[in-house]
């Protein structure tokens, strides 16, 4: 058999596995495009976990009580862990951590555009936990069935840790809504600012999404952007109403025939602007990450030097 034939047979075996709902594991043959598509998606997901620490970290020192501070620290610590699980999953595809971080810094690799918005008040920490983590969970639950084994297993681990994230955020909103007028207004203002960016988290409409069709065929993605977005809206509207918040969408209304909420048009120009680097905090987010990375260089160097010393000591003993 010549080379083309070999890869054709392999490609057929690969697709048959996917069609049979079997997972692809790191040492399996896979099409180069599948590998690249996965590296793009997993690393984007990893970067989002890590960059997402910034808007929340912004409030750790200013949390209104010691308990809220401990909770927020625990959540941000979890997000760092999620980043690690995902970078490790991406590395099983033959890319290095250094390359991934470098692509983040050059802008070649993206992260969720929502983290380019500022967290202006304490209520924003409530809105982020409730809306942003809820949206992430809707997406991540569907990705527990993604076709690549290490990615699917990372999602299972992450989903287990996420439920406290949305609960603590919703709890902040609920507490504010039981408070004074100023506090209720603060909660509503946070919802007003975070609602639409949360809907954008699911990405472009199904018809416009660049990677969707192939990703669905390979079962990297399991449900369409619009499908996931609808589920999020249906859940969040009910949750908002239960604590007296008003979703900032005049076109929002229950559609009995569909069994879902209809909602207004998303401002895709804003999405484009923010994802392409011109949101309120893009430069700040990247600069902060780069700075932290550069300032940590001496720690990595010191650890490598220590490691080398230990090894040479062990060699001397042997």
């Amino acid at each position, binding site marked *: 058999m010549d080379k083309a034939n070999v890869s054709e047979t392999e490609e057929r075996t690969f697709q048959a596995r996917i069609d049979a709902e079997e997972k692809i594991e790191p040492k399996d043959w896979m099409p180069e495009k599948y590998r690249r598509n996965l590296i793009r998606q997993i690393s984007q997901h990893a970067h989002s976990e890590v960059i997402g620490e910034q808007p929340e970290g912004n409030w750790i020192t200013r949390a209104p009580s010691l308990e809220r501070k401990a909770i927020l620290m625990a959540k941000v610590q979890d997000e760092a862990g999620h980043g690690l699980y995902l970078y490790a999953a991406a590395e099983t595809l033959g890319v290095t951590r250094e390359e991934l971080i470098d692509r983040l810094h050059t802008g070649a690799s993206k992260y969720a555009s929502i983290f380019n918005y500022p967290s202006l008040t304490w209520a924003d920490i409530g809105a982020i936990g409730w809306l942003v983590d809820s949206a992430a969970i809707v997406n991540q639950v569907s990705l527990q069935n993604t076709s690549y084994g290490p990615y699917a297993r990372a999602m299972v681990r992450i989903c287990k840790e996420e439920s406290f994230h949305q*609960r603590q955020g*919703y*709890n902040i909103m609920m507490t504010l809504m039981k408070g004074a007028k100023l506090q209720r207004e603060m909660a509503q203002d946070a919802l007003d600012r975070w609602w639409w960016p949360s809907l954008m988290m699911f990405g472009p409409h199904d018809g416009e999404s660049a990677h969707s069709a192939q990703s669905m065929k390979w079962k990297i993605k399991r449900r369409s952007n619009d499908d996931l977005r609808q589920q999020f809206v249906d859940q969040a509207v009910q949750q908002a109403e239960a604590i007296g918040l008003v979703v900032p969408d005049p076109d929002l209304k229950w559609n009995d025939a569909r069994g879902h909420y209809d909602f207004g048009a998303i401002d895709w120009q804003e999405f484009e602007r923010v994802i392409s680097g011109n949101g309120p905090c893009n430069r700040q987010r990247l600069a902060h990450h780069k700075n932290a990375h550069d300032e940590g260089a001496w720690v990595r160097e010191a650890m490598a030097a220590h490691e080398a010393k230990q090894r040479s000591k062990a060699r001397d003993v042997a």
Partner: protein
Amino acid sequence: MADQMQLYEVFVRSRRGLDHKHVGSLHADDSAQALEYARDVYTRRGEGVSIWVVASRDITASQESDCESFYDPLDDKPYRHAAMYELPEGVDSL
């Protein structure tokens, strides 16, 4: 010492999509041989689709006596669990 076989730990993935699980250990001269032995010893009835072997001496493990310093501080952090946060009426799941 040189002609003594080494101990290897064996991990088997029972099905695609699942983690490799530790199933036991065996003696072998090198890792290729350990892999063959593992196949013969641990997967005679189709128990797995993939095997990992790792030299036991390459494993760094925590000790049960480390438990306190490793895990103790986690007991007083109930806020890491969703169950701590009560939901208002009308919201059944979150």
